[in-house]
């Protein structure tokens, strides 16, 4: 059974989320305060965290940072604000995705399922991007045998780019492929995660060689040693 931790200070909303998610076949843990998250997180490690931004005790963004210190579990922020500032802060703190209230339950469930799915290994071995080897079975990547920890979303993003080395992915294409959005244009999501991924896998994140920006279009997998920018 998949366990989802719902963190929201509004008890009615939390309960309603519980009803919807239980209806969709998930198991749900409800938390109302930011500072109670980590205790329950340790007692019952969830498969995904739904995290409100405004929380008593600790803010959602602080909770997000704390979780990221010890876990790569998917985190979806729930925010009442669509403001760039809040969204970017949440994403930079380590959230994989966010949903702006009020959201449609079916969309929420779809988004959660996307975050939980595992890309089925087609050619389990041999996928590489530059000098980084991707092990799809173990869901991990390594450079010279040294494992680099990635969140599931970052892994999916890297795999999506590495699978088709020549293709230039528009941000929208990545949003639909990695995040499961259909008509989204919120490219901040892509930009922030590409930055985070670069900071983990690039030798020099300022001059990226593995994930290359194609001006006006999007991103593609780069070949190190050839400066394409």
């Amino acid at each position, binding site marked *: 059974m998949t366990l989802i931790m719902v963190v929201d200070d*509004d008890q*009615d*909303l939390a309960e*309603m*989320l519980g*009803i*919807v998610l239980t*209806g969709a076949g998930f198991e749900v843990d409800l938390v109302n305060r930011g500072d109670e998250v980590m205790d329950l997180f340790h007692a019952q490690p969830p498969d995904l965290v739904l995290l409100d931004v405004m929380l008593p005790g600790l803010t959602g963004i602080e909770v997000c940072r704390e979780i990221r210190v010890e876990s790569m579990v998917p985190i979806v922020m729930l925010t*009442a*604000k*669509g*403001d*760039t*500032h809040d969204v970017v802060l949440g994403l930079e703190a380590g959230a994989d995705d966010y949903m702006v*209230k*009020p*959201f*449609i*339950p*079916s969309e929420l469930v779809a988004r959660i399922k996307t975050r939980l799915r595992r890309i089925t290994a087609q050619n389990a071995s041999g996928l590489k991007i530059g000098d980084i080897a991707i092990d799809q079975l173990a869901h991990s990547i390594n450079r010279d045998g040294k494992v680099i920890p990635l969140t599931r979303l970052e892994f999916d993003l890297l795999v999506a780019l590495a699978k088709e080395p020549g293709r230039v992915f*528009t941000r*929208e294409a990545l949003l639909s492929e990695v995040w499961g959005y259909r*008509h989204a*244009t*919120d*490219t*901040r999501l892509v*930009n922030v995660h590409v930055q985070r991924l670069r900071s983990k896998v690039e030798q020099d994140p300022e001059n990226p060689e593995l994930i290359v920006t194609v*001006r*006006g*279009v999007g991103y593609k997998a780069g070949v190190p040693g050839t400066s394409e920018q």
Partner: protein
Amino acid sequence: MGAVQRWRSSLVWRVTGNSVLLSLGIIWLVGSALFSQISSGIFNEKLTNSLSDSQSSLRSIEVQLDITQFQNDAAVKKSVDQIMTVASISSNTAGREIALLHFPTKLPIATNYQRTSNLLSPNSVPNSLRQLVRKKGEQQWQRSDIHYLGGKVEQGIVVGSLLKIPRSGTYEVYFLYSLTSVDKTLTLIRNSLWFTGFALIFLIGLITWLVIRQVVIPVREAADIAEKLSAGDLGRRMEVHGENEIARLAISFNEMAVSMQQQISRLENLSRLQQRFVSDVSHELRTPLTTIRMASEVIYSSRKTFSGNISRSAELLLAQIDRFDSLLADLLEVSRFDAEAAVMVVEPVDVVTLLRRTVDYLHPSKERIIKVIAPKEPVIVEADSRRVERIFRNLITNALDHCEGKPIEITVVESEDAVAVGVRDYGVGFQERDSVRLFDRFWRADPSRARIRGGTGLGLSIALEDAKLHQGTLEAWGRLRRGANFVLTLPKVSGIEFSTHPISVIPEAELSTIVAPEDREEI
């Protein structure tokens, strides 16, 4: 150019210039009056002296000749020679020459005593004076040039009388007084008048400049500060020196600035509070709305198990929650614009792809009424894709709402520095005078008309704000029952103003139907 500019723009220069010009005129008048008075005074004195001197000299010559009259010609000649010698010698010191000229007569002359002192030319005595002397017989005078044989010419006064020389007859005797010393004096006076005049004018200019500066500098300072105040630097104040009128100006100016600042900050606070309130309300509404929405979705998803009325109610509930949701989102966006808190995320955006995707999203049905006319290659602008997409969405939604099933044309045209997107429909349109009010919040062309779709009434207003945020323009053209045309123009490079408008807001086909106002009256 610079001087004229200075004259027009600077009070100091203008006042100084005016006072210099005026005093120049006055000093010129006073100076020339003074000079002519002085010169005529000096001349008259010289004349009086010359007349009395010639009178007394003539008398003494007559006395001398009287003494010698009973002697022979030689004695008379000697006496005349002596007189002339004395006159010659004294001429250098007294500035006086003497000429003894023969009275023209037909009688034979025994001895010709015609003489002049020094090198004086006899021509120095003008003929007109000689005739006058001969006619009247008494002392006459005239101004004339004194000619010397060496070619030297001096200005002078010539005084003439008749003299009877014994045993010889009547002669004319002329005393010529040089005016050189008078001229020298007058030149000196004229020069000092010039010098004094110029010095006065310079001093007057300087003083005016200094005085006017004293007045103008505080005024200029006030003007500078007023400019800064009007530019929004509300903390500016004038410095107060002393208790004069300028100080009073400064004090009341500062009081005005303080009360203005208070008013403005009061209004700013009010509007900030109001915007904050709207924003807070929108946010606070979101959490319960989320719960309501989820609850209604749960009810909606099992509506099949309900009876007809309850099932329909579940549908209506969900539809209205959708509407409420978009209204709330728009309100929040508007409050963000009002608070000037809207943030742009600028990146290169392909307008064509974005447009086609928006069209597909809004109008997925097969019978396409939207026709997109756009270049095949990407048209890249530096913009916030989320906002540009929202402008497209609002314009297309608006067109779909009002097209009455007729086709909609969307055109993309780029120029060197701008990209324009025109959305043209041939539906209900609007009256010409409404083309500005269209963008007002919650404005509706015909309040009594039933709404067709679920627009919030904020779409166009938000689209205009989004366009302005990009430093672009959003214009509208429309005629009743002939449709509407909305044109969005965005700069290609963010923040750079564009000069071209690739699409005119008035549709080309409509240009020919525009008639002059006079003609329209008759129709």
